[in-house]
């Protein structure tokens, strides 16, 4: 019975990957096709080129791309749920499961932000990131579905890990946007944006958006760290022990705290803020990848 559910989960994950691939191609088509818009030969003025862009031609591809993203999200969601059913627990027991849930949270954060902001341009990067995550999960991190080790048997697993995964998804989205900011900023410093990039939001919008995402999710990350401390107190006899995972969670917290202070109190904007945001996000990624795989300490649940 539980093996059947594990197979069903795998099929959902594979289907989600196929659908994300379609979404990736649709986004790529949309991005590429916009470049082919006729350029005015005698003018280098950015505004003139914008006027000649033909949005209607790519509208259909854009709709397909987003629809595929939503379908992929649903399939991935089903895959994560089925994985949980197969193991009779929340599907957060090893790194394979963290990765598929993380990919789900990342797509969820993107789709959530898409409802409020025009972020379709970001879909190409999001679909690549999700495909890479799922690909690594399936090829390298996969482990058979199994019950939890005793230390993980706690309601705090649901609370602590879900908070950490959602925070991670939103942090990464903020990171991608900060990276896009830096890229477009360096492009603009050399002259007007190239044709395809003109469809992307202005630098101010990107700057604000990555800040909003971080400010929105920072309390949740604080909660994830504190919930982890409460759990550690009941499982390991101390709420804080500078275990590598704890240390890096702390570093991430400090880095984002510095980012928020730099913006709110000192008034950092633009390039410096984006670099700080990238630095903070990279500490999260380092924690997830390096500490899970090579790290010692008590958080050795990757199953690798």
């Amino acid at each position, binding site marked *: 019975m539980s093996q059947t559910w594990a197979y069903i989960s795998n099929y959902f994950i594979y289907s989600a990957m196929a659908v994300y691939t379609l979404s990736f191609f649709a986004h790529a088509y949309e991005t590429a096709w916009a470049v082919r818009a006729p350029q005015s030969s005698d003018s280098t003025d950015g505004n003139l080129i914008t006027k000649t862009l033909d949005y209607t031609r790519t509208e259909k591809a854009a709709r397909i791309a987003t629809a595929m993203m939503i379908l992929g999200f649903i399939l991935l969601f089903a895959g994560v749920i089925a994985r949980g059913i197969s193991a009779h627990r929340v599907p957060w027991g090893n790194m394979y499961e963290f990765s598929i849930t993380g990919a789900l949270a990342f797509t969820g954060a993107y789709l959530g932000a898409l409802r409020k902001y025009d972020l379709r341009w970001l879909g190409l990067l999001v679909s690549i990131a999700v495909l890479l995550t799922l690909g690594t999960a399936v090829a390298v991190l996969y482990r*058979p579905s*199994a*019950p*939890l*080790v*005793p*230390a993980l*048997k*706690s309601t*705090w697993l649901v609370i602590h890990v879900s908070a950490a995964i959602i925070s991670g998804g939103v942090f990464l989205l903020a990171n991608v946007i900060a990276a896009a900011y830096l890229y477009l900023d360096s492009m603009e410093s050399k002259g007007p944006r190239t044709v395809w990039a003109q469809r992307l939001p202005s630098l101010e919008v990107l700057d604000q958006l990555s800040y909003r995402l971080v*400010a*929105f999710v*920072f*309390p949740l990350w*604080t*909660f994830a760290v*504190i919930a982890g*401390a*409460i*759990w550690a*107190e*009941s*499982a*390991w*006899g*101390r*709420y*804080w*022990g*500078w*275990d*590598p995972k704890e*240390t*890096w969670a*702390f*570093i991430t917290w*400090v*880095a984002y*705290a*510095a980012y928020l*202070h*730099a913006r*709110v*109190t*000192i008034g950092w904007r633009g390039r410096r803020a984006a670099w700080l945001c990238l630095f903070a996000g990279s*500490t999260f990624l380092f924690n997830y990848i390096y*500490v899970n795989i090579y*790290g*010692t*300490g008590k958080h050795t649940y990757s199953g690798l």
Partner: protein
Amino acid sequence: MSQEIELPELGAVGLFRYGWRQLTSMRTALILLLMLGVAAIPGSLIPQRDQNPMKVAEYFSNSPTLAQWMDKFSLFDVYGSPWFSSIYILLFISLIGCVLPRSLEHFHASRALPPKTPRNLDRMEFYSSWKSKGNEIDIAQSALKSARFRIRTEGNSLSAEKGFTRETGNLFFHLSLILILVGVGIGSLFGMRGEAIVNVGERFINVPTTYDSLTFGKLLSEKDLPPFVITVDKFVAKYNTLTNAPEDYTLNLSVVEKPGEPPVKKVVKVNSPLSFGSTNVYLQANGYSPIVTVRDSDGNVALQGPIPFLPQDGNLRSIGAIKVPDADPQIGFVATFLPTQARDAVRGGISVFPEALDPKMLFSIWRGDLGLNSGIPQSVYRIDTSKMERIGLESLKPGESFSYDGGSITFEGFVPWVNLQVVRDPGKNYALLGGIVAILGLLASLFTRRRRIWIRIKESGEVEVAGLAKNAAPGLEVEIAKLVTLLKGEK
């Protein structure tokens, strides 16, 4: 340049004031915050004494010179090192210096009325004006009051303000960090932490000598140990037959909390420790203790009992040392216990499952000087065989015996052992409270908007409405539009 010349005239007080202002500036706080993050990194990459003393010892034996240099910079005790401590102490001084004055200021501001309505409202945001009916101030006052604005009315103008929670939350967040630090401090001054390996069937008495390791906070001493006695009745470990991973550990105890009281049965699991006030007892690790009887050549018992062995892998292949110091010459057994034995072509005897399904003990027998009186502390799991000679090699199943030149050994059976961790941390509730307040404060400060709304009826009979949102927070436009609709009497 002129400032540099003036500097000596500042004097000691001036210099202190200058230094204080620098330390409590936001820029310094930010630099210290980032420094704290960076300073935490080495401790996660280099093994730390607290967590992994074996790895640290490995560093010292592999490259002693480098390790000594690293030790000089406290790289094996990063989180207690002078440089790490100085960063967070400076950060907290800076924090206190910043937050306390702001708290006072905020307290006074929250008791004061909102500032007067500015003269030229048409220069503010979301400005609108229309012909007055005369009752706008009253309507606005009751509407804004029920929306919990703080209101100041002066003649024909009204000034309303809302969103003090933002700064309140912000201050509470920062104050709660201080509370967390206080909690950590109390825990390290008045706390204790100890570990003891106890065989199933044996008793643990809470006195210093029964511990394998024990550390006290600076302001706590041995006589503060609560006088409880724990008997380990039963320990059951369940393992997954596919992955060999543990699924459940259940420990049954009989606890006598104070001398003279009747024993109480308790169950301890990994995530549910046993509690006495601020003292907790945790189940941290487990393994096997083979029970052996060693006899001399005359058949007299020289050693008998369970001896804890140290697990080496997930299948609980465990190593141990059976030392018989009373034999003459001394005898030692360097032994391996395999819960479910198998042979591997390369590694020799291995265990293939952590539960004791087919146990076996492999050992070599050594004769000579165990080195117990050499003054060098020795591991209970290992034997220094440098002054000994090997006189035999054997493997036994439970119930079997082996005779060697000078005596015999019987492998009687085995019992599980558990590692009990006893922790007293009177500061943890302060830290927890700090954590909860930190989150609430953070939510309040990030998700409340501070804004002002003004209304004035001019002598010309025009009503003016305008507002101001601090930190360019969104949403005020809608709020004002609603108010304007209300004031105009439109539905």
